[in-house]
Structures are given as structure tokens and as C-alpha cells.
């Protein structure tokens, strides 16, 4: 069992409140997933710049001179904004891959949570309330975001096993369920050159979507593909730079509720997660159909 929440804003005036609304939704889903929590938030990016969100178990030592050290290697200006065990590095977009490569030797203990123009991912082991507070998620603004509360089944309770997973620029995926063909698919995707860092089943689902989109599929087409190529139980919520999608496997035993108003599209594993959203009483509320892809974009 896990909990998923998602919020895609149509009304830009709500953007400063995105983090606060997602935090409330996330904390409500604590009893579906008390062991870890995470959030992907799509905030403002700067033209020509990429953001790398990194995590370290030795944040003080690893982050102290990181911006200067990385900047020297890249020959570019790197800015660092720290939040607890995470830091967001801002650097020229053209050097995002070079930065990834450099970090592997510069700070081998560092984990890269995400990269892209606007995405930032924060995830840790612990109760959702505590995790959200460590990163002050409530103060974050953005256009859309996805959160996850984890009750682990397929891999260890670690930072790396927490959701969301990001396997491509500005992409992320969260999952409620378990995949049964992830080992085989992991091998196939790795051979195809897709980056997969953990032994977690969900990361393979995320990598699959990334791979399909690399082949030219739209987000909707990539999600359609999961119905044919992934075996197991899943409700997925995915984010891209400007999009937000939902798909459930054909058995659809993992719960899902959606709500839409003129101001937002919201997702919750349960209706409880949605009750504090503005105008929820007048929202269109429905249960997404099995084996049906839903997506929205800005």
C-alpha cells in the first residue's frame, strides 16, 4: 500500500500555494505510507539554465564547496541552494550531462534526484509530515507537483527507494502497487541505454516511460504502452515539464480518485486527500477507469 497525491494547477494565482496544498494532501495519506515520503515540484526555471537536485547522507561535507568545485570543472557558474539533505544546483542547461558525469567522481556519495528546467525532487525516509517539514515543502510554489507516501514492498526502505523517481529530464513518476516483470524489463532498458540507479520496481516503470518518450512517444502514448508492457499492479501518476498524467492497470485494485475544477486537476489515492482543496464540494469528482490514460498539459 502507498499513497499518491498530485495537483496540476490551471489557475496561476494558486501557484504560490502549491507546496502548502500538496503538503496537506501528503500528510493526509500518512497511514497509506508511513515509511518514506517524497515530492516532485515543478517550479519556475531560468532560461538556458538546468536544475539538478542532489541528495547526500553527509550533506554538510558534500555541499560545503560543491558549487565552486563543480563550477571549476565545468568552467561555468554554478549556484547551490540547500534544503536539509538536498541541494538544488543551477547551471547552464547545455552542461547538465557534464555535471552529472563530473559529480560521479567529484562527490561519489551524492545521489542525483532529478534534473531538468523546472523539476525539483525531495524525498527521504520518515513520516510524511517530518519529511515535508525538513524541506519546507509548504513554502514552495509551482505549476504542478506530485507526492508519494511509501509503504515498501519491492525494495528496501531507503532514500533511493522512495518515490518520486526521475529517469529523464523534467520527468517523474510515482506508483502505488508492485511490478512483477521489473527485473527483465530493467535489463532490457539498460541495454537500450536508459539510466536506472536502483533495484526498485517503480524506477523501472519510470524508465520505461522515459524510454518510450525518447522513441518519440507522447506522454499519453508512453502511458498506453505501460498497459501492454508492464506486468503487475499499478496506479501511476507522472509529471513532465508541462504535463500531468494518470494510468491504472486493467485490474485497477489500487485506489484512485480525481477531482477537476476550473482552477486545478487533483489526484488522491483516497478522497480524504482532496477535502481541503478550494471548491472541492463543487468539483467534478470521479474514479479513473481501469486501463485508461488521462493527461493534462499547460
Amino acid at each position, binding site marked *: 500500500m502507498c499513497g499518491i497525491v498530485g495537483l496540476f494547477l490551471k489557475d496561476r494565482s494558486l501557484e504560490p500555494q502549491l507546496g502548502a496544498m500538496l503538503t496537506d494532501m501528503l500528510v493526509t495519506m500518512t497511514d497509506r505510507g508511513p515509511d518514506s515520503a517524497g515530492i516532485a515540484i515543478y517550479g519556475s526555471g531560468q532560461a538556458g539554465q538546468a536544475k539538478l537536485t542532489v541528495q547526500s547522507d553527509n550533506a554538510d561535507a558534500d555541499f560545503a564547496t560543491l558549487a565552486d568545485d563543480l563550477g571549476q570543472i565545468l568552467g561555468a557558474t554554478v549556484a547551490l541552494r540547500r534544503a536539509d539533505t538536498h541541494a538544488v544546483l543551477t547551471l547552464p542547461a547545455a552542461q547538465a550531462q557534464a555535471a552529472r558525469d563530473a559529480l560521479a567522481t567529484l562527490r561519489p556519495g551524492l545521489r542525483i534526484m532529478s534534473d531538468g528546467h523546472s523539476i525539483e525532487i525531495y524525498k527521504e525516509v520518515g513520516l510524511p509530515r517530518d519529511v515535508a517539514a525538513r524541506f519546507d515543502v509548504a513554502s514552495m510554489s509551482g505549476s504542478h507537483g506530485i507526492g508519494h507516501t511509501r509503504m515498501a514492498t519491492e525494495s528496501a526502505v531507503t532514500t533511493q527507494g522512495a518515490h518520486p523517481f526521475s529517469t529523464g529530464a523534467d520527468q517523474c513518476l510515482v506508483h502505488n502497487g508492485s511490478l512483477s516483470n521489473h527485473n527483465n524489463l530493467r535489463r532490457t532498458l539498460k541495454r537500450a541505454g536508459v539510466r536506472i540507479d536502483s533495484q526498485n520496481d517503480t524506477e523501472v516503470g519510470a524508465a520505461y516511460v522515459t524510454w518510450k518518450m525518447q522513441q518519440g512517444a507522447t506522454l499519453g502514448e508512453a502511458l498506453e504502452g505501460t498497459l501492454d508492457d508492464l506486468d503487475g499492479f499499478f496506479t501511476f501518476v507522472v509529471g513532465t515539464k508541462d504535463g500531468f498524467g494518470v494510468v491504472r492497470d486493467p485490474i*485497477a485494485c489500487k*485506489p484512485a480518485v480525481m477531482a477537476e475544477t476550473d482552477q486545478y486537476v487533483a489526484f488522491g489515492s483516497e*478522497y480524504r486527500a482532496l477535502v481541503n482543496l478550494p471548491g472541492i464540494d463543487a468539483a467534478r469528482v*470521479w474514479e479513473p*477507469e481501469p486501463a485508461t490514460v488521462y493527461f493534462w498539459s499547460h
Partner: protein
Amino acid sequence: MQTIDLATQPLRELNSTLQAQSAQTNATAWEVLNPRGAHAIAVGLDAPIDVTVRGVTGYYCAGMNKQAHIHVTGSVGPGVAENMMSGTVIIDGDASQYAGATGRGGLLVIKGNASSRCGISMKGIDIVVHGNVGHMSAFMAQAGNLVVCGDAGDALGDSIYEARLFVRGSVKSLGADCVEKEMRPEHLEILRDLLERAGADARPEDFRRYGSARKLYNFDVDNAAAY
């Protein structure tokens, strides 16, 4: 009318108060405010009382009901009226998966749609859905009636025993051992009564009946190779 507001009173207090009502209680009408998707609202009741829940509930609303008449003005989460024994549960909105699962008696009415596995393993309950039902509805159904005024999803009545299934709209597919059956006068009577009690504006003559082909009841040696 007694009112319990879940915005200020705990869920356990609601359930223990309702469960404490006897058959002779004078407090026969109850109203529950601000359910806000909470789980297990009005469960395990055993008295002929009327309970109106104003809003949307989470998992297992009205589970194990005996005698009580429970009315939810919004939608309900998974497992509404699970294992109901008697009484009535009416949902004005939609129901999530496995509505009425394992129910032994009473009447469950869903005025919107029910999603997957509606009436799974039903054992005598009557379920009337004004809208559609999702896939695998009436899976392993043993007794009772499932009435669907709209359409049914995939694998209706898979591995069914002896329940009666009535569907007015389309059936996407029938499950293993579920077949269409002749609608005889006694079935029209059962259906007429259920539609009337459920407040459904539909003619019994517009429905088709489905039930068990009874071919899975006994082991067939010709299938031995399949195991």
C-alpha cells in the same frame, strides 16, 4: 433528529453511539455531518434506525449492517455495505470497488455508478445500481440479485454460483460459466419489486437476465490436462 458532526466528534464515538442503539430506541433518526472521506462510517449497526451521512465517505462505509437504513448523500469509497446482513444502504453518488461484497441480505442501492467487482462473492444481498458497474462484477456470486440499469464491464459474473444478474444496457463480456438466461415471469416480478424499492425508473421488460451455466460445479475429467 440526532446529529453527530465528525468535524468535532471522533469517528469511534459515532460508531459506538450508533452501535449502542437497541431495537426499542427512541432515537431513530441520525444525521452525520462532515464525513470528509473518512473510513468505516456507520459500521456494525444493529437497530432499525435511519442514518443520513451528508457528504463523501472513504472505505467500508455501512459495513456489516443489520436492520439500519443508511443513506449517503455523496459518493462512497471501496467496500460500501460489505457483508451487509439486512437493512438498506442508499448511495446518492458513485461507489468505488467491491460495493456490497459478500453481502448476505438487505438492499444496497447505488444511484450513480459502481466501479469494479460490485457484488463480489454476494451471498443473498440485493444490489441495484442505477448507472453502470465495472469489470468482474458479481465475481463468484452465490445468491441474491444484482440489478444494473446501465452497462456492465468485462467478465460479468465470472465463476458465478446461483445469484441472478439483471442488466438493462450492454455487457462488455461475460465471465467464465456465466450465460444469458431466459427471463421468466417470476424473474420479472423479482425485478419489478427491486426496481420499485430502489426508486429506479426502469421497465423490467428492458432487462436481460444472466446466471450460472453450472459447468464449474464439478470437476470435469476432460479438463485434467489444464491443471
